[in-house]
């Protein structure tokens, strides 16, 4: 689905990513971990075209549709959850109200609430971020620290959702400090000193 070839990235002489190679196939669930500032978010941002790499290439299949939650999600602060999700889904005309309602119900968010995003807690914003990453039937999903601010109940919901999506053939990449014990990972990687080391034995 996606192949990352020899990606390099540095910020003011600080080499974050030295030589990153990664291949993600259909139905795989990858776990990437590493110390703070090791470049997990940077790698995701490069793959999602938010920032450019210094060198290297990313090969993507034509049918790959990426969904992602990276760092602190930025929403339209003075609008409701519904407005934000409809706004995002309408960019590529993938609005599926039934699916969004189902996801909101799963994460105990009120889709019809008139409350604006500015008044949402960190956990609620995180849930909204998770929902937008999967609501359009995206087939390659990146989650960067997805459980940040989530309560235990929501973490279990998240783990179940990931397992269900992988069973349906979606590919998921999770970068987190928490390993999430109930998620069935197909590959595990350690991002250290700018390189990605496989921990599959």
């Amino acid at each position, binding site marked *: 689905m996606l192949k990352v070839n020899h990606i390099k990235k540095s910020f003011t002489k600080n080499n974050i990513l030295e030589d990153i190679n990664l291949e993600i196939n259909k139905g795989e669930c990858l776990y990437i971990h590493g110390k703070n500032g090791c470049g997990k978010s940077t790698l995701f941002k490069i793959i999602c075209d*938010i920032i450019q790499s210094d060198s290297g290439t990313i090969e993507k299949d034509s049918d790959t549709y990426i*969904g992602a939650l*990276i760092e602190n999600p930025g929403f*339209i602060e003075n609008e409701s959850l519904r*407005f934000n999700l409809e*706004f995002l889904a309408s960019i590529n005309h993938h609005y599926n109200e039934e699916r969004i309602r189902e996801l909101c119900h799963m994460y105990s968010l009120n889709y*019809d609430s008139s409350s604006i995003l500015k008044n949402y807690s960190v956990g609620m914003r995180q849930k909204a971020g998770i929902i937008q990453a999967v609501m359009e039937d995206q087939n390659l999903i990146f989650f960067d620290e997805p459980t940040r601010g989530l309560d235990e109940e929501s973490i279990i919901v998240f783990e179940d959702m990931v397992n269900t999506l992988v069973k349906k053939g979606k590919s998921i990449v999770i970068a987190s400090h928490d390993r999430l014990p109930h998620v069935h990972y197909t590959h595990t990687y350690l991002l250290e000193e700018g390189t990605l080391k496989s921990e599959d034995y």
Partner: protein
Amino acid sequence: MFTIHIPIYLKRGHLRVKIIKNYVSLFILFLICKEVFHIDFIDIKYFFPQRPIYIVFSLLVNYFYLKIVFDCIFQYMEIDTFSIIRMGKKKYHTMMFKRIMHTLISFVFFSIFTDLFCFHDICILGLIETVCIETVIGLWMSIFYKRLGTHTFMANLILIIFVKYLMTLASGF
């Protein structure tokens, strides 16, 4: 409970209504300037005047000008990361540029219309100057919005006023 669902395309229409409201407010402001205070439109529209009452109107006019550009792009700026993930960086920037351009075209038509209707004259140089400032400011806003956050609008308004003040001094108006 009975709730009315408004589809997203109508909500985007709501944004257009917001922009039209800004234009209507500007138009009323020009009429008040002309009919009540007998202010020369070039003073308040394109330059920075010296007299206090003129300054108040000039600030209001510049506020609405900036708000027209801001309203057309700020939602995409706020939700830029998620938008870029969906459409790619190149397409995102092209879309932002197009939105600013469309807004400016409607702005030029509105300006020509109000100038002719209210004051029976057009200040071509002033119009070109304002369009250039608004284009630069619009692009500047879309690039730096993430860093400046909620201060973006006010920072830009001050910048516009300062540029117009310098231009007024330089032109000796």
